[in-house]
Every structure is written in C-alpha cells, then in structure tokens.
C-alpha cells in the first residue's frame, strides 16, 4: 500500500517492503522491533538535526507499538528515516552482504540529514 510515511504503521509497512518481509502474520522481523528502530532513528535525527524538532521543543517522540499515531517528522526527511530503520533492523543479520547494506542505509540516513539531499544507497553501497 502506497503511503506518505505519516504514521508509525506506515513506516513499519514501508520498512517491511525493503526488508522483503511482507507476508504476515508470522513476520521475520517483529513489528515492535521496527518501531524500536524508528525510535532510535528519531533519537539519531535529534542529534543531527535539532531544527527538525523545533515544534516539539526539542523533545523526541517515543512510540511503544505499531499504531496509527502520526510521526512528527518533516516530509523531506522521511525517506532518510526509513533508510535508518531498515539499516538498523538488518544489523542483526550477520551475512557479509547484509552488513554492507545495513551500513550503507544508515550512512545514507546521516548523509541525507546532514550533508546533502541527493545521496543514494546505490552510490555508497
């Protein structure tokens, strides 16, 4: 399902597409783990870009489960946050190819937020 990455559930669904884990209900990666990766991504974003949290007075939102709760994150950087979630989830896999992919996706997130908007996974990985 196409989405604009506005809610927690939409991030989880979009992450599952990149993780090739779309057939439920017995997913490989539990939803709660993906939500936790989202929380970690927001914490990392707060370190890199405090200006993305002006409206929340610098407070980083926290989500306890997969819900339809909105994620207050600027539309320009949502794809970057999704890259972080996928990279974070793939850290648990210890195959060499997955390690490289995980690092590339997390680096892409950092690059997108702090250096330039044009960086791509293909260019790095």
């Amino acid at each position, binding site marked *: 399902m196409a989405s604009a990455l506005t809610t927690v559930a939409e991030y989880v669904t979009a992450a599952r597409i990149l993780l090739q884990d779309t057939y439920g209900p017995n997913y490989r990666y539990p939803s709660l783990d993906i939500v936790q990766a989202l929380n970690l991504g927001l914490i990392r974003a707060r370190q*890199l*870009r405090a*200006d*993305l949290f*002006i*409206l929340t*007075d610098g407070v980083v939102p926290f989500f306890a489960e997969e819900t339809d709760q909105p994620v207050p994150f*600027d539309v*320009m*950087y949502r794809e970057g946050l999704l890259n972080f979630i996928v990279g974070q989830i793939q850290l648990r896999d210890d195959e060499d190819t997955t390690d490289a992919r995980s690092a590339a996706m997390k680096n892409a997130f950092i690059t*997108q*937020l*702090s*250096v*330039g*908007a044009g960086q791509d996974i293909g260019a790095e990985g």
Partner: protein
Amino acid sequence: MDHVTRLMANARIALTGAVDDAIKLNIFKVLDEFCRETNIWQETIEFDTIAGTDIVYDLVPTLGTILRLIWVRQGDAKAPAWGTMEIPGELILPNIYTPQTHIYATVSLAPTDPTEVGTDLPVVPDWFWHRYFPAFEDGLILKMASQPEKPYTSAGLANFHGQRWRQALGVARADAIKANVADGQLWRFPTFAAQRTSTTQVN
C-alpha cells in the same frame, strides 16, 4: 503572495533541505537584529505628566518591545527635553512637572518574540518589507547557511550574503539617523581637519 511567504519561498530555493520551522525561527532573528542594530523602527509615545507626583513613567508602544530612548520633547512647541531610560520602557524625567505637561517620547523598537516557537512570525511595520526586503533575504540566508552540518551549510553563500547584510545594516542605520531623507547628510567634517593634532604643548 505576502512578503513573508515570498521570503520563505526564496529561502527554500536557496537553502536545500531547510525546514520551515527553522526558517521562521531565523526570520525572527533577522528582524530582531535589524532593529537592534539600526534603531530604524521608532514610535513617538505621547502622554501627560501628572502634576506634582512622579518622575517615572511606563511607556507602552503600539507594537514590539522598547529598546532605546531616542528623543524627549515637551509642550505644544515640542521643545527638546531631557530624560533617561535605564530600564527599557521606564522613562525617567529630570524633575516633577508642575503644571501638567504634554510629553513626546520617541523610542526605538524591536519585534516581540513570537509566543509559540516556530508557528508564529514577528510583526514589524509594513513599510519595512517594501524598503528592506532584499536585506532580510540576505540576513536570512546568512543565518541559515552559516549553521554547521546541514544540507544547506555553505561558507561561500554565508560570506556573500553576510557582506550584503552588514552593508544593509549600515544603510538602515543611516536611514534612521537621517529619518529616511535622501542625501540628508550633506555636510561632512573637512578632511584637512580630520586628524586630531595638538600644537599646544601641555606641561
């Protein structure tokens, strides 16, 4: 398109990846610095002294917050008077006026801090936008481009717009002194006497 919308649209084009809340925050910084550095925003507040009672009067501007006291004048002739303002907004007259006297106190102003961070924009006189719009754009790009580790960080851009911003502050400062009169300062100190030299030996 109103002036702020146009300013934000221009900023978004120059500053790749800048979020609107950060742009709004910096628009306040630009307008605030502009007023503080130049005294360009002035208002004359009029009031009657209370005969035989006090020398301290609280001044309340129509908009903004008071920075400095520029002039004090008194009576129908608006004769120059004396006054101080140790605390901005608190005018102290030299003596108790008896009988009651009409006072004109001209103060410089800065925009009031928006009540809600990122969602509100400071209010300044409308003529500011017509007269100094390019300066505000320079100031905004300077402040955004000089932030560290952002997609829109650019020392070159900050330097270029920084020079133009400082130049605009100088122009506005002169405008405030000359009350926006073109070529208001026709006389200047003669160059042959510009150096301070003393021919008298003091022992």
